[in-house]
């Protein structure tokens, strides 16, 4: 084991390298590109025995990944944002093929307007695809989660592809100390890929992903995906326990921080949860019983684990780094569904923040805790709040003024 400073992108690449992936179909997109560059460099230098092929789009990349996995090799790929959405048709398709492989998504806000900075609308657009999803908050977690993801995907009770998500910039380009496990230790955790007889061979012709007629067969195969995804909850716990025993690092499906005696719990996913964790420490210093819950698994959704931590609390502040226009935050609805009708279900206040890399500074987290406590006091669920400060609005007004001046200077369109 070595302990080095790695970016989240480098940690993802190390995860793929240690997993001894055979095949990397690739396509560049910011902020993911470093991952495939690192893999290409290792492969060219002979440090990694894999084949990397750059496709002409993410749609093709995901198709090639699925077809290669269906042929029986271990596959890795990475994308971001527009790329994930460009390949969306194939995310659903290859999940239906029941091929295990791992796709790293480096989260980035979606167009329009086009941006490079992160939020979770990209990866949440894949929520219903059949891919399982693991969300990371740190660089070590990225490396470890790639390894966990292969074990999970390839388990005979699951056989579904997995997305490992990390936030663009905040993790992708941020160096943190990361322990790189010895290859032999990883080999013991992750044996070579066994396609379990489901692979294309001349001597054993196989038709895969054929059309069905009627809702009966269609529903049957879709339900199979649901059952496999549900199996993944228990399988994940097994694998995470095995991993913790081997490596001494715990990556539960849901990470709870200071939740046991908390009255108000902040709920967040991804790297911004580390900001909430720091805010919890400050609030605790001030004598406020606040905790943090961070689901690492989004699919399958660890509803029972969330309930275990949350039933009996006074209130939740769910902070979504995504926006479902006309509804609000996606994680808020996931939690509401997990808690609805259960005795002791807390009040749920929903906040939208961190879109397109917008910061959520400590003061906002304190304010969120205060607003949530007050709502619990009144017993009234507040409407979803969109985080934005007066200072930000003033800055935006300046930009609008400049835009107006520029427009007027050019005069009316001919």
């Amino acid at each position, binding site marked *: 084991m070595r302990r080095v400073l790695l970016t989240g992108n480098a940690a993802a690449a190390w995860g793929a390298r240690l997993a001894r992936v055979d095949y990397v179909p690739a396509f560049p997109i910011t902020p993911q590109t470093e991952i495939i560059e690192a893999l290409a460099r290792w492969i060219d230098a002979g440090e990694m025995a894999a084949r990397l092929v750059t496709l002409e789009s993410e749609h093709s990349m995901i198709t090639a990944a699925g077809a290669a996995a269906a042929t029986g090799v271990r596959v890795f790929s990475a994308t971001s944002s527009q790329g994930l959405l460009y390949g969306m048709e194939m995310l659903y398709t290859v999940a239906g093929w029941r091929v295990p492989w791992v796709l790293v998504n480096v989260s980035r806000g979606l167009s329009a307007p086009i941006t490079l900075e992160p939020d979770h609308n990209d990866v949440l657009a894949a929520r219903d695809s059949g891919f399982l999803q693991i969300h990371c908050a740190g660089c070590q977690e990225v490396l470890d989660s790639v390894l966990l993801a292969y074990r999970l995907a390839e388990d005979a009770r699951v056989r579904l592809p997995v997305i490992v998500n990390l936030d663009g910039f905040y993790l992708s380009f941020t160096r943190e100390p990361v322990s790189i496990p010895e290859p032999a230790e990883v080999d013991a955790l992750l044996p070579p890929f066994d396609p379990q007889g489901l692979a294309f061979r001349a001597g054993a012709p196989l*038709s895969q992903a054929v059309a069905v007629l009627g809702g009966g067969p269609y529903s049957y195969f879709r339900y199979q995906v649901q059952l496999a995804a549900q199996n993944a909850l228990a399988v994940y716990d097994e694998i995470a326990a095995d991993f913790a025993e081997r490596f001494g690092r715990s990556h539960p499906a849901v990470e709870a921080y200071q939740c046991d005696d908390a009255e108000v719990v902040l709920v967040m996913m991804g790297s911004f949860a580390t900001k909430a964790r720091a805010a919890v420490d400050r609030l605790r210093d001030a004598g406020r019983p606040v905790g943090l819950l961070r689901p690492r698994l989004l699919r399958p959704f660890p509803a029972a684990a969330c309930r275990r931590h949350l039933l009996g609390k006074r209130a939740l502040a769910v902070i979504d780094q995504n926006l479902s226009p006309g509804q609000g935050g996606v994680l808020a609805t996931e939690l509401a569904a997990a808690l609805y009708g259960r005795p002791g279900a807390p009040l749920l206040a929903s906040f939208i923040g961190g879109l397109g890399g917008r910061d959520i500074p400590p003061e906002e987290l304190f304010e969120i805790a205060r607003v949530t406590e007050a709502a619990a006091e009144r017993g009234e669920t507040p409407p979803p709040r969109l985080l934005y400060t007066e200072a930000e609005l003033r800055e935006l007004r300046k930009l609008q003024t400049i835009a107006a001046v520029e427009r007027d200077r050019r005069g009316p369109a001919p």
Partner: protein
Amino acid sequence: MSEQETRYRSTRDLPSLHLLGTGTPMCAGCGGLEALHQIYDQLGERSLILNAAGCMTLLAVYPYTPFRGSWLYTAMASAPAGAQGARDALDILVAQGRLPPEEDLRVVVLTGDGSAYGMGLSATSGAIERGLDFLYIVYDNEGYANTGQQYSGATPHAALTATSRLGAGFPGEKKDLFAIWVAHRPAYAATVIGAEPLDLARKVEQALAIRGPKLLLALAPCPTGWDFDPQRTVEIGRLAVQTGVWPLKEYRDGQVVHTKVPRERKPVEDYLRTQGRFRHLFEPERQDALIAAWKARVGTYWASVET
């Protein structure tokens, strides 16, 4: 291919054992299926077909398939990328000693013109550019036939389709997919038609002998989409060749060679008259300008070939 190089010197040499199962849901008289039957006789069961959305997606409907080999339905746009992933995976497995070479498969894309001329063009271009070792079979029925023959990038000028139903028909021109392939300098490219089995067999034989990207572009007379009686599929296919509308040719070693040049081309009208989609060129009154444009297009093509 010279006669000395081919095992198909006459129709007597054509395969007598047919490998593709019958009783599929394709329409009666499907010119695409006619070509596929012949291609599959040589391709055989040691093949993996990556299918793009189209009529032939319905060949394999759970739990039945007419294929003796393997099949993976992908999507409309990315069958060549599926071929890339499968080919690469097979190569990796053979190189690692995890797959005995005799378990290796030929990787084949099966697509209609809707994907080949349009949505799948980017993925196809990428696969050719990467030198992928695959066979790319197009059944070109000149429209989005599976959805009821709306016009596609393969639809010829003046054809009536479900989205060019009235007036002079489709205003555009048929895209030259063969030329697009040739511009990529592939290992092999050929136009074929099911009604010319000997020419087709030699081209399949040729394609299977070469590594790299290979095109078999089959004009697929479509009784349903072109509006003719299914029993006339072979006749219409022959007319397409004899009138010069569908030139049979192949590209190899950097050269385009015409494999069946009609000595005396039959009038283009003989082909157009057989199909309801061109009936408006003749009834209720003859559209001389449109017919002249068709003749000019075919004449110009062959003038460029024959000089």
